[in-house]
């Protein structure tokens, strides 16, 4: 195994359904991937496909049902929280809601440090101000409160907080969705620059395909908790195998290829209920290419040309 890689194998997260001991919502089902250092894995899919559950489960905010997460060959199960949080940190979608309004900027950034290590407040302040400079904020602003910053600046605060423990992996859950395009560009540039400087790995979750295409080295398309397609981002974007990936690319108005533009419409716009997922391939209820066998046979994740695809066709 490559050093300093994040390895996730057969990760599952089932939520029990109220009033039944046998029914589960399978929010994550058999998700596996490898994230080498200094790379970005983009995760795309519609709401409810398990993107955010994946982020939470990786961070340990939700307990996993099954599977293994390991970093540098050390399993997360045997890691103390302290080591875990020094390995992996998270940046959230809504920059205002994820910052404590009663704390000053430097306190927000330094909090993980004060909790996880024995540093004095002065040292923490100094470290926080260094990081503020690194993410493009003026250190003089360290005594301001979150509401005094603009949206883009707040997201920079969130990034600084995630960086203070020198993690190796950052989970970015829709980090730019709440921002205007010009500010979005600033944050994306900052993230790329930080990755280059610090050798970070990113798990970049977004519903915006053009952003993911710009950021990601690898891409994973999820559908109802399962991996639909996973592989090199350029290859997936230029030559998607799975009908769902094709649909997403068509709807995202970003592909120039005629094959994608003329790809048939979805049969139904509605995502099936995860409480009662379709038999066979979960996508067959909407897939314009579905055949009879798709209704009954669950496609295995198959690898071809360094790409995993779960589709019978």
């Amino acid at each position: 195994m490559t050093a300093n890689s994040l390895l996730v194998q057969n990760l599952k997260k089932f939520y029990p359904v109220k009033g039944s001991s046998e029914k589960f919502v399978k929010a994550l089902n058999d998700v596996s991937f490898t994230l080498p250092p200094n790379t970005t894995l983009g995760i795309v899919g519609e709401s409810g496909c398990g993107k955010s559950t994946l982020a939470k489960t990786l961070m340990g905010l939700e307990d996993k049902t099954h599977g293994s997460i390991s970093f540098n060959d050390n399993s997360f199960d045997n890691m103390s929280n302290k080591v875990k949080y020094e390995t992996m940190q998270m940046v959230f979608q809504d920059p205002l809601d994820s910052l404590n309004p009663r704390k000053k900027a430097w306190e927000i950034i330094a909090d993980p440090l004060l909790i996880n290590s024995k540093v004095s407040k002065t040292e923490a302040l100094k470290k926080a101000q260094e990081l503020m400079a690194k993410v493009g904020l003026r250190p003089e602003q360290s005594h301001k409160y979150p509401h005094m910053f603009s949206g883009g600046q707040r997201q920079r605060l969130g990034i600084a907080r995630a960086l203070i423990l020198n993690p190796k992996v950052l989970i970015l859950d829709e980090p730019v969705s709440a921002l205007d395009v010009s500010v979005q560009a600033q944050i994306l540039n900052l993230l790329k620059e930080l990755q280059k400087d610090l050798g970070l790995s990113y798990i970049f979750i977004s519903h915006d395909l053009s952003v993911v295409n710009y950021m990601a080295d690898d891409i994973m398309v999820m559908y109802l908790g399962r991996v639909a397609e996973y592989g090199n981002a350029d290859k997936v974007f230029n030559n998607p195998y799975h009908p769902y990936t094709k649909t997403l690319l068509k709807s995202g108005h970003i592909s120039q290829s005629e094959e994608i533009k003329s790809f048939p419409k979805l049969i139904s716009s509605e995502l099936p209920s995860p409480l009662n997922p379709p038999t066979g391939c979960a996508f067959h209820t909407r897939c314009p290419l579905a055949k009879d066998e798709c209704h009954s046979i669950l496609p295995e994740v198959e690898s071809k040309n360094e790409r995993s695809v779960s589709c019978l066709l």
Partner: protein
Amino acid sequence: MTLLVAKNLQIQFKTKKGIITAVRDVSFSVESGETLGVVGESGCGKSITNMALMGLLPDNAIVTADTLSFNGVDLLSLNEKGWQDIRGGQMGMIFQDPMNSLNPCYTVEQQINEVLEIHCPEMTKEQRAEKILSLLVDVGIPAPKERLSAYPHELSGGMSQRVMIAMAIACNPKLLIADEPTTALDVTVQQQILELLEKLQNDHGMSVIFVSHDLSVVKDITKKIQVMYAGEIIESGITKTIISNPEHPYTKGLLDSIPSFHDTKDDVLFSIPGLVPDLHSRPKGCQFEGRCFNKKDDCSSSWPTITQKDDRVLRCHYPLK
């Protein structure tokens, strides 16, 4: 035929800190059957302009204009009763967040029925019931009969937006204002809503004002586009020409900051430095001057006026060539 004309529209708000001008010197027109795209970042005045067209601004707003007429009616002279006739009848609106725009206490049928009751009083109860069902079919809701008695929380985001659209087109409006109608939706659902809007527009011959911050969506569905910044129109014209050849530095910056308009990943995204000006103390000259890469000395002292060349309207001293 020109449906909507706004000339020199200005919208001000009385606030504790004095009067602020949110929108100024905005002039545009919408022809029958045409789609106008409006783009710009948060706070550029897109939504406020639409609210003014619908008469939905709060009491502390002051709206003035040389002309603001819709279908021959002077909107500035309307009283509340007059507004009610136009709003929901000849002018429909779809809002950004469909989940929050429907009344959670009423069923789908009751909500659409209300629109018809008010604006089409000549219809009988039976006619209304028939119309509601056909509207739901029009907007592509599966199993429409069962949905009639559904409450908004039982519908998905895409379905709620379809119900909103059904309400907006219930009285065959001449103009549909769609304010970020797909922003809260997934891309696959967005695509279907856009296709639906296009189809309805062709069927009913409506004009549409389509507001969005997403240029990649706007470029595919509109013929005309206007770009707003700090409450002013800074560039407008034919969508294709503007996207392929922007002349205002702000439009160029906006386009360059979108990843999908880039070819390679190694490009650093262009980002517009700085922030939108504070409306309490607007710059004296060009509003974009502080963030512009192409500014010259006189940009900060004199406010550029609107110039028109062919189809393109521009507010810039030094347009890009």
